[in-house]
């Protein structure tokens, strides 16, 4: 299934910070067919470094989507039944307006003059896209990690527009630990002289800083077990370690490789803006409590967490579940067993498929 990324331009978007951004471009992809009644649309929300290319083979790069094993004919999000959409988030660097986009007033990239954005802004833009596609009510919104945070924002902000919600390995707000790791990433970028106050688009990007940020990120996405399994203390091309600062351990080589790869596809300023938006996010804000916020929701929930995920631990999913139960909202919850840490939501396909496919089919049947 070859897919092309589509683009749509909106006149403007009023942001939570008070600034109006104009114009705003959104990059998105779609799979399957919207039915006549427009009741079979599923919106997929990507994680921090993801993009609109969630499924199929990209016409541009030839690569499969980041959740290709979950979206497609006969898969968890069955494109024979559902019309599935995914868009790049506001502040991103993969087709949707972000700090690397041209500021029409100056003719130069926004860089650090890009306004502060929130999860709410990202979701409001997604709602504009969904309406643009002629969809009033989504059958489901689903996403892992930051995508899970957006799922929660959706059900609170647009309760009438969502029938089923799948927040996976997510949270209603970041803990000190999550903010801390994001801050290490941001400081790594800003400590790179090539960052140059964010103004690097005409020269060399802060590749060293961004790469270190990504290396830290990858450590938090794995688990002690999965790293032991994947790398252990194995060395590259030698029998015993010599005292050198080359990447002699496999784990070092892997992290450096992932760091370098990331620099080619991600913008350092997007890293700063999006991680900040995640840290600021607090679903309860303005409502007094998480329960009061989630009381607005009308969706059926399936909340999923993973045993070895220490970055978005199960207790954070349980906070969401507990708040929903306290308001007598309809919620299913399962902590899946996995060794893969936070990466599990991308890797553990079999069990997630069983849960999501069955649950979604039931909601579709009831809604139809």
């Amino acid at each position, binding site marked *: 299934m070859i897919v092309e990324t589509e683009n749509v331009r909106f006149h403007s978007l009023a942001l939570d910070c008070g600034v109006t951004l104009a114009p705003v471009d959104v990059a998105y992809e779609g799979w399957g067919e919207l039915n006549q009644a427009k009741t079979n649309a599923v919106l997929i929300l990507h994680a921090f470094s993801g993009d609109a290319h969630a499924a199929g083979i990209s016409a541009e790069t030839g690569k499969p989507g980041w959740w290709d094993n979950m979206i497609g004919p006969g898969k968890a999000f069955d494109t024979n039944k559902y019309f599935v959409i995914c868009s790049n988030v506001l502040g991103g660097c993969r087709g949707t307006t972000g700090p690397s986009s041209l500021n029409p007033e100056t003719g130069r990239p926004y860089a650090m003059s890009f306004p502060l954005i929130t999860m709410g802004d990202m979701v409001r833009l997604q709602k504009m896209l969904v309406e643009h596609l002629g969809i009033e009510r989504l059958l489901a919104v689903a996403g892992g990690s930051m995508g899970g945070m957006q799922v929660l924002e959706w059900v609170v902000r647009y309760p009438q527009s969502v029938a089923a919600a799948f927040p996976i390995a997510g949270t209603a707000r970041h803990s000190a630990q999550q903010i801390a790791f994001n801050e290490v990433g941001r400081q790594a970028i800003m400590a790179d002289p090539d960052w140059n106050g964010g103004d690097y688009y005409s020269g060399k990007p802060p590749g060293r800083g961004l790469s270190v940020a990504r290396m830290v990120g990858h450590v938090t996405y794995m688990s002690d077990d999965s790293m032991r399994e994947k790398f252990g203390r194995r060395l590259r091309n030698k029998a015993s370690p010599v005292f050198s600062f080359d990447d002699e351990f496999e784990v070092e080589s892997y992290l450096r490789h992932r760091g370098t790869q990331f620099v080619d596809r991600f913008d350092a300023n997007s890293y700063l803006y999006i991680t900040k938006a995640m840290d600021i996010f607090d679903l309860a804000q303005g409502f007094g409590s998480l329960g009061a916020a989630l009381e607005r929701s009308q969706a059926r929930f399936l909340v999923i967490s993973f045993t070895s995920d220490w970055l978005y631990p199960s207790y954070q999913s349980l906070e969401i579940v507990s708040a929903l139960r306290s308001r007598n909202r309809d919620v299913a919850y*399962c902590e899946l*067993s996995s060794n893969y840490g936070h990466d599990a939501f991308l890797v553990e396909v079999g069990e997630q498929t*069983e849960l999501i496919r069955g649950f979604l089919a039931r909601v579709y049947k009831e809604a139809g």
Partner: protein
Amino acid sequence: MAAPPQSVPGRRLVKELLGRGDYAIISEIVESGSKVLDLGCGEGELLEWLAENKGVDARGVEISRERVQRAIARGVSVYQGDIDQGLADYPDKAFDYVILSQTLQQTQKPLRVLREMMRVGRHIIVAFPNFGHWRVRMAHLISGRAPKTGLFPYEWYESPNIHFLTVDDFEVLCRDQRWNVERRYFLSGTRRVGGLPNLMAEVAVYLLRLD
């Protein structure tokens, strides 16, 4: 000794639902379109049946991860958790019926669970195996060992059952707690038991409310 319980008159033979007599009775008790919480709901078979055939808003609590997965895959909203602690989140009178089917004898603190059920439900339905059944008594009397019967098939060291209550025990509890027994059913296999339920019933099903 409690007052001899009265069985509800009616058909003597109970048709099974999903292979179980107590499910058939529960499915008759539960009113269409009501809100139901099933504690220890297993793979959600009963909840799925109630959702499809009686249009109920069905929720469940189950401790086993594998069973929770299968229940959710059926589309039933099941929460993975322990019923000894798991009801605290729910507001008062959140459900029309709270069901505890063949699980009471496995809870750590049965009275606390029953009280919590009374708090979150307008009615509660409790089904439990009767340890007072004559076959259990005989097994114990003759072998002198922990009874092992069709109803209680486990070795003592691997049994999930940690409380062994009888119909009379439950009647005494209801009286002491001043719970209102709305209906009671006694089963032996798929047959309704006529008299002497504490001796003859394998399974008892109670419909209760607080006042």
